[in-house]
């Protein structure tokens, strides 16, 4: 199976401004950053979380705690995949108890990843609330999950995939819609 | 009905025959060996391109009867023997009950004649219950027809007991076959001690376990003048010890088995219990030394140490698996591949190791020779036939061999015992 690139839907500048906008929305929505922490889902959600924390920190002039969550061990499809996915480290160095957690991922699709992440997060303690921020919402939900903050809504078909590229992992920033070829 | 074997290559070292000849059998005896024998009315077996030699004699077989008839019986063992070209065998005493009295010796002889396929000679135990403590009633056992004495499977650790056994058995002309193993050195050991045992974490048996006993037994044979035969020699140093003993004029003979000139300890890798055997398989160097011992005459005989074991005894942890492998059906083909094709022995030399010498060592009169008047025990062998060892086609009741799947060169076509065709092209009569 090959992927054929169809369209570049966001460039580096658009990603940057989406993150800035979400940063402002989060601060506005929560009135303050007191008791607020950010947790990104590995791999690209964690990278986005770092950037988002940086923006928010700059706005309020204080450091926002940020962590990375690996949800592999919570996946509901381990019995279906051909081989075990690589497990990465979960790094949450702060107590999440009674915090407002901003959960960050790159693309919101079926909602299953977020479901795993919620289960994983709750194993670390009982946050006051969990809010969801994503760069791209592409629809096709299979679970009752929605994003509190979305960088961009991109209507897609299920044959398509949305790829978020980030400098730290992929050498460049951008969001691409691609189609699977038979 | 008379039988004539036409046009084969006859190998009869006892009579210095190694040429194209016919063999005529009348009744249960050999009538004549020579060129272009005319025999009107005789059944003719075409032996063109085949080898014809005196029937093979296995000095070392475990038939498991009485006691473990699920593993082998006199009948099934006899069939395996015929397929392997053997017309006579000596069955070991470590049955249950042990062949350690006149009654059990007679029982084996009755079972053998009931099976009616080959000559089965019982060996009886040297000591009661194979315990290495008290001598059996050797005089009565000799009268009952035992052809040798052996505690095989176990050594006689007490040198004094073996000394007395050699002296006492000498009165009856009985041979003592010694299983050489120092059980203090070999205790709990399951394979040869060396790099492979280190790698597998299995308890090793040092090679000295065999050799110190070979040396001890040689000295006892020298001391007593008794008839000593050393079973299943596997170690280089043991071959050397026997070579020296023979130079000194001590009356000792010895045997090795096909696995000791075919396989090495590497066969154990992967915890293969089918390659667990006692004495354990050794190194390439030992294999080379055993071959040298065969070619220079140090080793007198090739026996099989055919040791049938049930699946339950082998399909277990390596430590708990029984030792031994079956051998009757493969011995001649392995010898053909390893010894003839590698020019270790010529056919005359091999027939000596597998027929002439065993007959001599066991004092089997009329065996091991095709001279007129000898017993008509004959093996016809096709040295170029190829076959693959397939567990399903093994005649022995047990299938414990590490050779499954191996290509064999040479197959027995006809086995004649006492003038009767008992085995011919895969069929038993």
């Amino acid at each position, binding site marked *: 199976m090959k992927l054929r690139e169809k369209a570049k839907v966001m460039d580096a500048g658009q990603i940057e401004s989406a993150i800035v906008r979400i940063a402002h929305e989060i601060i506005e929505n929560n009135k303050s950053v007191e008791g607020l922490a950010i947790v990104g889902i590995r791999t690209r959600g964690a990278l986005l979380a770092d950037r988002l924390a940086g923006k928010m920190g700059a706005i309020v002039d204080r450091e926002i705690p940020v962590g990375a969550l690996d949800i592999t*061990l919570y996946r509901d499809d381990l019995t279906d995949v051909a081989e075990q996915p690589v497990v990465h480290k979960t790094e949450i160095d702060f107590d999440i108890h009674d915090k407002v957690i901003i959960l960050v991922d790159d693309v919101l699709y079926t909602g299953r990843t977020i479901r795993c992440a919620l289960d994983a997060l709750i194993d670390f303690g009982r946050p006051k609330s969990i809010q969801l921020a994503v760069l791209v919402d592409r629809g096709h939900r299979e679970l009752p999950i929605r994003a509190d903050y979305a960088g961009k809504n991109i209507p897609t078909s299920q044959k398509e995939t949305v790829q978020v590229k980030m400098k730290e992992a992929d050498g460049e920033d951008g969001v691409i819609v691609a189609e699977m070829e038979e | 009905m008379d039988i004539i074997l036409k046009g084969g290559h006859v190998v009869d070292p006892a009579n210095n025959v190694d040429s194209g000849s016919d063999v005529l059998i009348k009744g249960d005896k050999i009538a004549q060996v020579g060129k272009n024998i005319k025999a009107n009315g005789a059944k003719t077996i075409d032996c063109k391109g085949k080898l014809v030699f005196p029937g093979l004699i296995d000095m070392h077989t475990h038939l498991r009867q009485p006691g473990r008839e699920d593993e082998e019986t006199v009948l099934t063992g006899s069939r395996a023997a015929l397929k392997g070209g053997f017309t006579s065998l000596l069955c070991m005493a470590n049955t249950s009950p042990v062949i350690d009295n006149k009654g059990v010796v007679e029982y084996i002889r009755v079972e053998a004649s009931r099976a009616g396929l080959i000559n089965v000679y019982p060996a009886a135990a040297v000591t009661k219950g194979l315990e290495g403590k008290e001598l059996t009633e050797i005089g009565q056992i000799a009268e009952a027809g035992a052809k040798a004495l052996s505690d095989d499977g176990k050594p006689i650790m007490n040198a004094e007991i073996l000394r007395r056994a050699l002296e006492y058995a000498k009165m009856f002309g009985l041979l003592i076959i010694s299983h050489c193993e120092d059980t203090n050195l070999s205790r709990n050991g399951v394979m040869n001690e060396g790099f492979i045992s280190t790698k597998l974490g299995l308890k090793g048996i040092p090679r000295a376990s065999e050799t110190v006993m070979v040396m001890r037994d040689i000295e006892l044979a020298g001391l007593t003048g008794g008839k000593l035969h050393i079973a299943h020699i596997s170690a280089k140093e043991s071959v050397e010890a026997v070579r020296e003993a023979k130079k000194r004029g001590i009356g000792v003979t010895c045997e090795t088995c096909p696995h000791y000139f075919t396989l090495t300890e590497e066969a154990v890798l992967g915890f293969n219990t089918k390659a667990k055997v006692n004495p354990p398989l050794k190194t390439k160097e030992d294999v080379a030394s055993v071959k040298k011992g065969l070619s220079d005459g140090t080793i007198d005989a090739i026996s099989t140490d055919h040791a049938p074991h049930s699946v339950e005894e082998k399909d*277990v*942890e390596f430590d708990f698996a029984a030792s031994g492998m079956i051998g009757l059906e493969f011995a001649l083909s392995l010898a053909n591949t390893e010894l003839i094709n590698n020019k270790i022995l010529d056919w005359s030399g091999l027939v000596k190791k597998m027929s002439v010498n065993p007959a001599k060592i066991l004092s089997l009169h009329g065996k091991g020779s095709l001279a007129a008047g000898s017993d008509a025990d004959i093996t016809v062998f096709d040295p170029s036939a190829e076959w693959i060892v397939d567990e399903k086609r093994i005649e022995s009741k047990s299938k414990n061999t590490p050779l499954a799947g191996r290509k064999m060169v040479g197959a027995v076509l006809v086995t004649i015992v006492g003038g009767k065709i008992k085995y011919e092209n895969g069929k038993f009569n």
Partner: protein
Amino acid sequence: MAAKWARKDLLGLETLSADEIGLILETADSFKEISQRPIKKVPTLRGQTIVLFFFEPSTRTRTSFELAAKRMSADIVNIQTSASSLTKGETLRDTARNIEAMKVNIIIMRHSSSGAPQLLAESVSPSIINAGDGSHEHPTQGLLDIFTIKEHKKKIAGLNVSIIGDIAHSRVARSNIWGLTKLGANVTVCGPATLMPPEIEKLGVKVTYDIKEAIEGADVINMLRIQLERQGQSLFPSIREYAMKFGLDADKMKYAKKDVLIMHPGPINRGVEITPEIADGPYSVILEQVTNGIAVRMAVLYLVSGVKERIE
């Protein structure tokens, strides 16, 4: 990470590649954090059944595996028996087939006979994890030792590791030797000649009977447990002499490097192979080994549970 895991069983480190060992170590690194959470449990092996099949008494290894399995939400069953009672009736293979028929996913097995786990691995479909077989291998112990070394030294290649004690009967020594040499360490083994297996140098290790030589220049010293029963088998004259010649004490530590790591697979015979002051001293990472054991075993359970190819 280039390596992929495709093995149904973990029987030993002999057969693993350096990449496969690396994959287990990296996976274990990710698992380590789980045991530090308030809720020490992930749902990964939910609905999977694991049998701990121990034919030899063991507290430490069994507990470590049990915790690893429980922290991954597997259901576990303990079977403790002795090898000898099994030989009387049912064979090992029969017992295993019965367990297989109960639809078990993983069998963790300890046995006094070398090769016993392989016998099972060849005949049943559940994954077999060797928790120590005879004197053959103890792969998870080898892995956790290497993991602990790597945590401290940040590398394995080029390190000098000395393993001291009863090498002949030690499955821990063998698994360490296989793993460490594959990853490029220089391994020295040291012990009395009677407890040194023949031709061990062919495994790529240096052999010495002089403990001073084993200590000098070593980055890591792994002290093996001496089975006190061996005293009666003429393998060494007395425990006292063993402790004097091959035990690690403050006096012998004078030869050690300043940043040496002292390891021991446990349980320790205090005052025999190692004195309490050394076992509890600043160089000792013995308790870290125990902590890391759980992460390594979780990683192994995770990796084998994903393998789909099974014996029919």
